[in-house]
């Protein structure tokens, strides 16, 4: 109850609270005062009534002495009739000394009511009456007694009047206090309300420059002072913050500008670096081209020379030239591959191919060399191994050629075995393991760790004795890593070695689309056996290459038309019919790509399709894609070997 009241009180405004407090206090004080005044008035009234009655009775006593003394009832009655002037008195009785009624007076309506003598002489308030009963003594003698009784009408009336007056006073004083309190409470509530309004305004307008007005120098004044000081403090802080923020913004924009300029510099540096890298790649490609073109001549001419009638001495010399040139080509290819891998320029292809075919061809290619050495070469493919996979067949073959070739190279007698098995099938991909066992000389234990690092053939003498750059294993190791596998070696000197590597491929059922091999490896004899005469257009600007290719083809009975640049080639195609076109890529006036595109656009009207084979020393990545994109059907890389060239011609003329 009290807590509910105080809760309601707590919700009131300070103005109402002050009014409430004032009214409550005033009312309480007034009620208290009225009660005290009323009580004292009542007591005073009763006392005065009593003493009046007392006096009246005494006077009657005094005045009745003679009547009593001389037994004059008439006089006594007359005396008592005087009580009529006292309206409150209801009865008066004089008793003689012997207790008999001497004289009697009573108000009309009180006739027959008996007096209350029991209780003796007294002046007392009794319920509903005030009475006085006293003896009459005169000169030491009791003459009789007098009894007077009055009702309390008068008292009641007076009390009612007093109550009315009290209430009226209470109301008047309350109203007066209300108005006075309403006016006076402003001294306290107004500064507080003003403070609240100021605080609201500050919050609403976010203006910390607003100040509360100080009206008094009491605690409220101190409160307003404190509030204003706080506002000033906030304003200062605000100002500081704003200044700080502005400085910060300046700093930030300055930093951003700096960053931008640094960024520009970085972009410039990056562009310059990329430019440099491109130039380097370009340089490598050019070098490759520049080196291969003369190599082409050397190799082709040597082959041609070897087929003429020679003395045994000449044959031996030329054979040495050929093998040296082969070795040199291998070394150049290795170095180019290695530098491409190191530069991160080597990207793997992802094409579907027949694993059996790829491995079988590689083995067939190498079986020639093993047969020459008298080393048995076998391969086994576990039946679990998926027949068709997606991967890079060219790079896989490169690793196989390297490892199996090495095995053959370092095995004097015995056998080389290639074992292919499925090591793991993880979701979409399969991990294939290739193991190359040989019965060769083995690798010393201390060399086994560093064997895959660049330029670290087991012994410096190895290079001298067996040739090679020693980059083969390093390149293989990098290629295997790129194909998601690992390479390792296990070897006991004198007993043989086992090189294992794994490759991650994706088994597939897709048909193998790329039928034409970049490096067709077929038995030259078989190609020769199925040979037929074709009409060939050769577009080649280099005279050495012209002569080389011309001789190779004419020896096979093909008719060759020569064009020295792209434009001549296009014109030749317009003039005559050809079974096949051999197109050098880099030619003056019109490149091989442009010529191919021109020929293909002509063919779109005629509906014909002449197979075009690119001849390029651009052994760089993207060459093959460029060739195919410009409309060529295949390509062979320079230096052109008779074997490759004839094989390609054979394949294309068959499919054409």
């Amino acid at each position: 109850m009290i807590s509910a009241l105080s809760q309601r009180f707590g919700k009131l405004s300070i103005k109402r609270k002050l009014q409430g407090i004032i009214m409550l206090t005033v009312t309480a004080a007034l009620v208290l005062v009225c009660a005290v005044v009323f009580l004292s008035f009542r007591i005073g009234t009763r006392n005065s009534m009593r003493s009046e009655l007392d006096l009246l009775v005494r006077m009657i006593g005094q005045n009745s002495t003679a009547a009593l003394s001389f037994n004059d009832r008439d006089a006594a009655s007359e005396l008592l009739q005087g009580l009529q002037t006292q309206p409150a008195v209801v009865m008066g009785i004089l008793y003689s000394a012997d207790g008999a009624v001497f004289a009697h007076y009573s108000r009309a309506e009180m006739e027959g009511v008996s007096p209350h003598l029991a209780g003796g002489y007294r002046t007392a308030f009794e319920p509903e009456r005030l009475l006085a009963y006293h003896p009459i003594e005169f000169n030491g003698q009791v003459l009789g007694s007098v009894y007077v009784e009055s009702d309390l009408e008068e008292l009641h009336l007076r009390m009612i009047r007093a109550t009315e007056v009290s209430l009226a006073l209470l109301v008047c004083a309350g109203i007066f206090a209300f108005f006075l309190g309403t006016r006076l409470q402003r001294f306290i509530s107004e500064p507080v309300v003003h403070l609240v309004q100021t605080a609201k305004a500050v919050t609403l307008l976010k203006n910390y420059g607003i100040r509360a007005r100080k009206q008094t120098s009491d605690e409220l004044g101190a409160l307003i002072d404190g509030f204003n000081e706080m506002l000033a403090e906030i304003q200062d802080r605000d100002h500081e913050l704003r200044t700080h923020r502005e400085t910060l913004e300046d700093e930030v924009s300055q930093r951003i500008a700096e960053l931008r300029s640094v960024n520009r510099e970085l972009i410039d540096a990056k562009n310059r670096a990329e430019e440099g890298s491109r130039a380097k790649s370009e340089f490598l490609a050019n070098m490759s081209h520049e080196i291969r073109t003369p190599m082409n001549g050397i190799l082709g001419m040597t082959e041609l020379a070897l087929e003429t009638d020679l003395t045994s001495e000449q044959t031996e010399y030329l054979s040495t030239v050929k093998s040296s040139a082969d070795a040199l080509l291998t070394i150049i290819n290795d170095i180019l591959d290695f530098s491409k891998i190191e530069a991160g320029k080597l990207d793997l292809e992802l094409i579907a191919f027949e694993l059996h075919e790829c491995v079988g061809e590689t083995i067939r290619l190498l079986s020639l060399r093993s047969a020459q050495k008298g080393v048995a070469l076998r391969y086994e493919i576990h039946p679990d191994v998926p027949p068709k996979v997606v991967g890079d067949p060219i790079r896989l073959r490169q690793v196989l050629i390297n490892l199996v070739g090495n095995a053959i190279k370092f095995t004097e007698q015995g056998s080389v075995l290639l074992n292919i098995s499925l090591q793991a099938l993880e979701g979409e991909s399969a991990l294939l393991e290739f193991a190359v066992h040989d019965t060769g000389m083995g690798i010393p234990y201390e060399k086994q760790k560093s064997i895959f690092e660049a330029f670290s053939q087991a012994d410096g003498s190895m290079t001298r004795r067996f040739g090679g750059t020693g980059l083969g294993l390093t390149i293989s190791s990098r290629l295997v890593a790129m194909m998601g596998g690992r390479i390792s070696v296990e070897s006991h000197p004198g007993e043989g070695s086992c090189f294992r590597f794994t490759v991650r491929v994706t088994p597939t059922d897709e048909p193998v689309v790329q039928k034409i091999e970049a490096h067709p490896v077929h038995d030259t004899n078989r190609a020769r056996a199925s040979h037929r005469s074709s009409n060939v257009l050769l577009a080649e600007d280099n005279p050495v290459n012209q002569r080389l290719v011309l001789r190779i083809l004419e020896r096979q009975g093909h008719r060759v038309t020569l064009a020295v640049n792209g434009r001549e080639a296009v014109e030749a195609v317009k003039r005559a019919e050809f079974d096949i076109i051999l197109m050098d890529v880099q030619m003056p006036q019109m490149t091989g790509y442009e010529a191919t595109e021109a020929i293909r656009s002509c063919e779109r009207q005629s509906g014909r399709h002449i197979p075009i084979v690119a001849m390029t020393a651009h052994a760089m990545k993207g060459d093959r894609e460029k060739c195919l994109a410009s409309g060529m059907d295949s390509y062979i890389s320079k230096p052109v070997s008779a074997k490759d060239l004839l094989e390609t011609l054979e394949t294309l003329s068959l499919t054409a």
Partner: protein
Amino acid sequence: MSETANEYEVKAAFLYKFASFVEWPPDSPSSTLCIGVIGQDPFGSMLEGVVRGKSINGRNFLIRRYKSAQDAVACHIVFISSSERSRLRTVLDGLRGSAALTVSDIPGFCENGGMIDFEILEQKVRFVINQEAAEQAHLKLSSKLLNVAIYVSQGTK
């Protein structure tokens, strides 16, 4: 007779009670209050009976009986018996100049210069007062006494 006896008993008591309502001049004797009877005493021993043991303001009562008025001048209250009817004027003249309250039941007492005259009214003893006579004798009669009198003849002043 018993009625007469009763009448004089009341009159005796009245004589005694009058003392309470009268104020005598200061020069009158104050040691005792003397009630004198002139002429044939009708009270017998009643007066003595009434005042026995009584006193007013510490003054005891003294009852005396006199033959002539000259003897009774020192009394405070003098009752003149009906036996003195024929010589009333003489008796009253004899008391003139004294401070005695003269009381009698002789008819026409007050008209003859007496102060209080007993009368029988409705078989009750009442009295008439001649205030003029009392004032001449420098007696102050209480208003209460005057109130209970049948009749008061006012002083002529």
